[in-house]
């Protein structure tokens, strides 16, 4: 953005325009009364002044870009042609009257970078300058008596003047079209006004030259007027482009104001979408807990959105804050995106916390629902086990003992009692299984370390235990950790084909780290088996998080972090 005063710029532009008019008037053959020379003179003057003034504005806005100086110089180079609009053509003006066309070619091809980026641009521009000097000079020389060979040459040059001019225009047009076709949407948006105006001007210029071929005709004046207007439009279009980028940045300023006043029209996403002019914008907020980006409602955000959209990360220092999934065109305006994100940083952080919370709630609700369903199913199972097992067996015991009691045959008593005893022992077995399901007795007796040692002791592979727990843990945490190790070791037994495994329990701060690793086949994926999903649920239901590192062929390490507070 310009750091210079806009008032000074406007003053400079106006002053330059004034000086330009004075110079033209002073150089003209019949000074004064410039208005009398008709619309062509007026429009021509306006075009020249536009280039000069527009060039000064551009120069001051973007001092390092040569487009500004080029336009300003073009405005100066316009003077000889303008002088020719006066009656009585001066020789110097006649010789220099084409210079502006060469400069126009240079400007059109150098826009918007200010440099002639390609060799073809340089060649065409060079040619244009040569023609712009040679053709009018030849025409001017024709006024003087010349040796025949030279006259023949200048005649031929003058005769082919229109072809050469049209050819040049065609080349410039072709290069501009090619560049346009290669440009991205955003680049096109940025250069459209100037490119459009310059292409129209180039065509108009060629047509104007062609019109001259037919000698004086009623169309000549209107065509020249159109050409002048379209040239005048070029610096105007440049100013429009400038204003447009000003407005883009103005929208960022508006965003800052609205966010600071909390005058939100919608969500932060809507605000950013409006500021960046990208209605399909998606804002993803980082959730450390889930290790991914989620939207404002806590749903995961797709970071592979397809060819027309790209992902830009917004970080706060080193920490990830958010991502914008936006139109690829916005890549051309990184400063705008950056400015908008900087403006919205605080709001983004707020929204991120909210999104994080929503994501957690969503996840928690889902895992709680599944745990409740699981608990419900378990309770039903226990009830059925008790009903079908223990109760039936005890009933049969009562009946058998009743038979023995009422027995008339004393010899039958002993077998009946033996039968009753067997049934009671079976009932004890059933009860053991049920109570183990309700709460593993070993956990009650020995705590988590002892229970994990028992799991290790009955596992079919060698299991090394590293259980650095010196303080008692909350019972819910012990229970969760026990089931996680149990399930994890069961998975190792079933799927890993491991020769050894290890279990590590450690307190890190107020969190219990549960780690179960093996040297098996790896390639475990929570998406593939319900076992791992169940583990993840159990971890989440206890406020924890499950991560699995299981490269194929390199074993599996399952980690769960459970908060103990």
């Amino acid at each position, binding site marked *: 953005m310009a750091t210079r005063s806009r008032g000074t710029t406007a003053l400079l532009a106006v002053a330059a325009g004034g000086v330009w008019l004075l110079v033209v008037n002073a150089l003209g053959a019949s000074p004064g009364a410039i208005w009398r020379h008709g619309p062509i003179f007026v429009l021509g003057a306006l075009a020249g002044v536009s280039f000069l003034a527009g060039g000064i504005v551009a120069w001051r806005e973007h001092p390092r870009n040569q487009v500004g100086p080029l336009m300003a110089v073009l405005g100066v180079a316009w003077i000889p042609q303008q002088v020719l609009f006066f009656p009585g053509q001066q020789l110097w003006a006649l010789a220099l009257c084409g210079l502006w066309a060469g400069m126009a070619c240079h400007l059109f091809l150098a826009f918007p970078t200010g440099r002639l980026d390609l060799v073809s641009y340089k060649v065409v521009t060079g040619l244009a300058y040569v023609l712009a000097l040679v053709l009018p000079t030849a025409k001017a020389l024709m006024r003087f008596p010349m040796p025949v060979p030279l006259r023949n040459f200048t005649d031929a040059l003058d005769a082919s003047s229109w072809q050469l001019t049209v050819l040049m225009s065609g080349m410039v047009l072709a290069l501009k079209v090619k560049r346009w076709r290669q440009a991205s949407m955003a680049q096109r948006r940025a250069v459209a006004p100037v490119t459009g105006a310059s292409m129209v001007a180039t065509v108009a210029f060629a047509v104007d030259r062609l019109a001259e071929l037919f000698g004086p005709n009623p169309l000549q004046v209107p065509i020249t007027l159109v050409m002048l207007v379209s040239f005048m439009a070029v610096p105007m279009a440049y100013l429009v482009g400038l204003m447009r980028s000003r407005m883009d940045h103005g929208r960022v300023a508006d965003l800052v104001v609205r966010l600071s006043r909390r005058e939100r029209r919608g969500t932060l996403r809507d605000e950013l979408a409006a500021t960046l002019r990208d209605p399909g914008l998606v804002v993803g907020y980082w959730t450390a807990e889930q290790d991914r980006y989620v939207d404002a409602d806590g749903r995961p955000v797709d970071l592979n959105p397809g060819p027309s959209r790209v992902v830009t990360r917004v970080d706060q220092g080193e920490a990830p804050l958010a991502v914008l999934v936006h139109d690829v065109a916005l890549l051309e305006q990184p400063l705008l995106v950056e400015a908008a994100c900087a403006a919205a940083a605080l709001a983004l952080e707020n929204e991120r916390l909210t999104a994080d919370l929503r994501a957690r709630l969503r996840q928690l609700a889902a895992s709680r629902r599944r745990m409740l369903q699981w608990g419900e199913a378990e309770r039903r199972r226990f009830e059925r086990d008790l009903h079908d097992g223990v109760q039936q067996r005890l009933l049969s015991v009562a009946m058998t003992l009743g038979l023995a009691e009422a027995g008339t045959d004393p010899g039958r008593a002993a077998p009946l009692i033996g039968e009753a005893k067997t049934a009671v022992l079976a009932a004890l077995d059933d009860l053991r299984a049920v109570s183990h399901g309700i709460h593993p007795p070993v956990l009650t*007796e020995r*705590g988590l370390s002892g229970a994990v040692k*028992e799991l290790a002791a*009955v596992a079919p592979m060698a299991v090394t235990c590293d259980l650095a727990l010196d303080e008692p843990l909350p019972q819910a945490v012990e229970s969760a950790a026990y089931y996680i190790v149990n399930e994890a070791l069961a998975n190792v037994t079933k799927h890993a084909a491991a020769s050894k495994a290890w279990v590590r329990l450690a307190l890190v701060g107020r969190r219990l780290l549960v780690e179960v690793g093996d040297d098996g086949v790896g390639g475990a994926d929570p998406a593939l088996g319900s076992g791992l999903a169940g583990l993840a649920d159990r971890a989440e239901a206890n406020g924890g998080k499950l991560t699995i590192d299981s490269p194929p062929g390199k074993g599996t390490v399952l980690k769960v972090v459970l908060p103990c507070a």
Partner: protein
Amino acid sequence: MRVAICEDSTLFREGLARLLTEAGFAVAASVEHADELLAHVAKDPPDVAVLDIRLPPTHTDEGLRAAVTLRERHPQVGVLVLSQYVRVSYAVELLGGRTEGVGYLLKDRVSDLAEFAAAIRRVGSGGSALDPVVVEQLVGRHRQPGDPLRMLTERERAVLRLMAEGRTNMAIAELLVIAERTVEKHCTSIFVKLGLEASPHDHRRVLAVLRYLNA
């Protein structure tokens, strides 16, 4: 043979005392707390101390810890732990690398008086008695393909289990209804197949088998 009982459930404690008296044992003490048992054993060592795992005050593993202490302090006293559940890790902890005069059984086993009495006598005379459930769990660990245990015949595995339970060759022969000589042959074969160095006739063979199973 004199037996001291430590059990917090009055019903089971009194029933057990009655049962043991019936089977010809002398009940030297019948207490509720592990501390009381330790004090009593120190004062008047019995042949066998029978104790539960869950004991007051916390009803977690007081009994198991007391049993380990007893085995350290009084190696001559047999220790038989009874529990509603049996665990491999507890067995390992209880044995502590020494199978002399130790037993670990499910409480259910009291229902077969003759068998239970035999187990107490075994423990009281320096032998061992490991619950079949624990042995089964230990054997169950060796189910991976290529494990030497899978090379044993069905009969050899049965002999191995009974050996691990701490039974003598004579008892194994009786239970499997085979000749004692046959049991000896099976034992030798098992030791060769498993690559165990200790002699199958050695009294330390139980430890060798258990170490193998728990490896």
